[in-house]
């Protein structure tokens, strides 16, 4: 992989095997096995996906619901292993998708900083060093010592955002529905992301809205039923997308 490539996706395919009826216990499994009724049907959620993202490039991923956008993101984030194909990443990826998905409700905000930070792969010393900064950005104040079960969903999202963005990632994965907290905090978080943009980090932006993709990205790809049907600069692709969804 060249030095200027941030992400390289080669012929990626993801195959799901779905049982016609859900078999999730030993009893059903044994019965179906004996009656030879264990049938599956397979389908490809993604097939033959190849593209590259250069460093500093902002790529929009367009597609309707069920086109395979989330599956692609899961593959890129390393959560889902592709059935075929290869993926090469250059640098640290931070997915700002579901903030605070790993929070423990009985833990206080402070304890969650360390737990969630550990899940993102940060070390204890590093988190200790950055702790004050995280709390300050989240604006939680004294609430940081209160168990998370007493937080509002906005407060949780604020804490999640503050921990996830404490290190500037090389590659940022963004979902269009990133609305963190109240209007004031949203402005602040949008500014933080914009600042990262200005410093030239690589961005993957998932959306089904052309407007947002046009304003944020310089290149785009379109997914349809698991296939990559177009890629190119954002203007050309969004014209194609407009035609496709008509």
């Amino acid at each position, binding site marked *: 992989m060249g030095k200027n490539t941030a992400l390289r996706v080669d012929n990626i395919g993801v195959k*799901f095997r779905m049982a016609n009826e859900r078999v*999730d216990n030993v009893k059903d499994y044994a019965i179906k096995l004996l009656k030879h009724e264990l049938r599956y049907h397979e389908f490809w959620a993604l097939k033959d996906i190849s593209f590259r993202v250069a460093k500093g490039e902002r790529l929009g991923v367009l597609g309707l619901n069920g086109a395979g956008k989330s599956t692609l993101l899961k593959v890129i984030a390393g959560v889902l292993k592709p059935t075929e194909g290869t993926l090469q990443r250059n640098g640290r990826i931070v997915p700002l998708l579901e903030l605070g998905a790993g929070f423990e409700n009985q833990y206080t905000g402070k304890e969650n900083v360390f737990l969630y930070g550990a899940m993102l792969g940060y070390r204890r010393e590093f988190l200790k060093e950055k702790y004050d900064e995280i709390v300050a950005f989240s604006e939680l104040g004294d609430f940081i010592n209160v168990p998370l079960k007493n937080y509002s969903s906005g407060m949780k999202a604020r804490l999640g955002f503050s921990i996830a963005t404490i290190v500037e990632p090389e590659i940022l994965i963004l979902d269009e529905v990133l609305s963190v907290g109240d209007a004031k905090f949203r402005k602040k978080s949008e500014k933080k992301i914009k600042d990262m943009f200005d410093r030239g980090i690589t961005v993957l932006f998932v959306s089904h809205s052309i407007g947002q993709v046009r304003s944020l990205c310089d290149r785009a790809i379109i997914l349809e039923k698991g296939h990559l049907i177009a890629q190119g600069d954002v203007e050309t692709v969004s014209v194609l997308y407009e035609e496709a969804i008509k």
Partner: protein
Amino acid sequence: MSMLGIMARADRIFGEKHFQILYETGIRMKTFYENFKKYQFLLTELVKKDIKLKYRNSVLGFLWTLLEPLLTMIVLTIVFGTILQKKTPHFSVYILTGRLLYSYFSTGTKQALKSIRRNGGMIRKVYVPKYMYPLAASLSSYVTFLLSLIVLVIVAAVQGIRPTWYLVGAVVPLATVFLMVTALGFLLATLDVFFRDLEYIWNVTTMLIMYMSAIFYEADSLLDSKYGFLIKYNPLYSVITNFRNTVVYGKPLESFYVWYPLVVSLVVLVVGLAFFYKKQDSFVLYL
């Protein structure tokens, strides 16, 4: 001989292909170790979380870990000691040692069994080495278990049991039982992802294992009977016996009870890990 010479020779002995495999295994172990180093802090955090949350919302907190086995011991001693007229020396300590080891076995495996599914939300969203979850479950139960040994020290002292040099040997059953629980944990956690009723099946199985472990009765007279093999070849009974030998009776370790549970645990560990690694990429599809 120069390094190059050694490598050339190794090449001739193993053949190029074997050498390649050796080299790749080396690389893989190195990446595994580096990855483990990176997430080592997560392992401590997960273990800490289990232990902290266990005691957070109870008034007696840590005291429960000591009180619970103590109270069970008293009940069992009264029931089996008085009513059945048991004359085993130090019967209460005999019960307590068995109970403590069994309850680690049972809670440790049950926690590990649930670990992948309980953390499903996390696994679906952030990449974390998945073996961390069953390992942390087994480790946190082990820490609680080691702490609960305080009650054994107290009861043994009250009963007038004096430690002998053989006490050092207790390290062997203590280490073996951890290996056993961790090994089973990987196997059970993997199966639990695909079969939701495994939890109930395992609950019944652990109960069966309890009755096969000679916790509140003496096994000596039963070992030669028709079904004695059920106890003798229960690895948990081996561990309990050697623990009692060293701690309660001031006797040396019995060699069969040393190597037998160790071999069984190692086999289960290899099978469990292989199964876990084979299936871990598809966990996310079933959670």
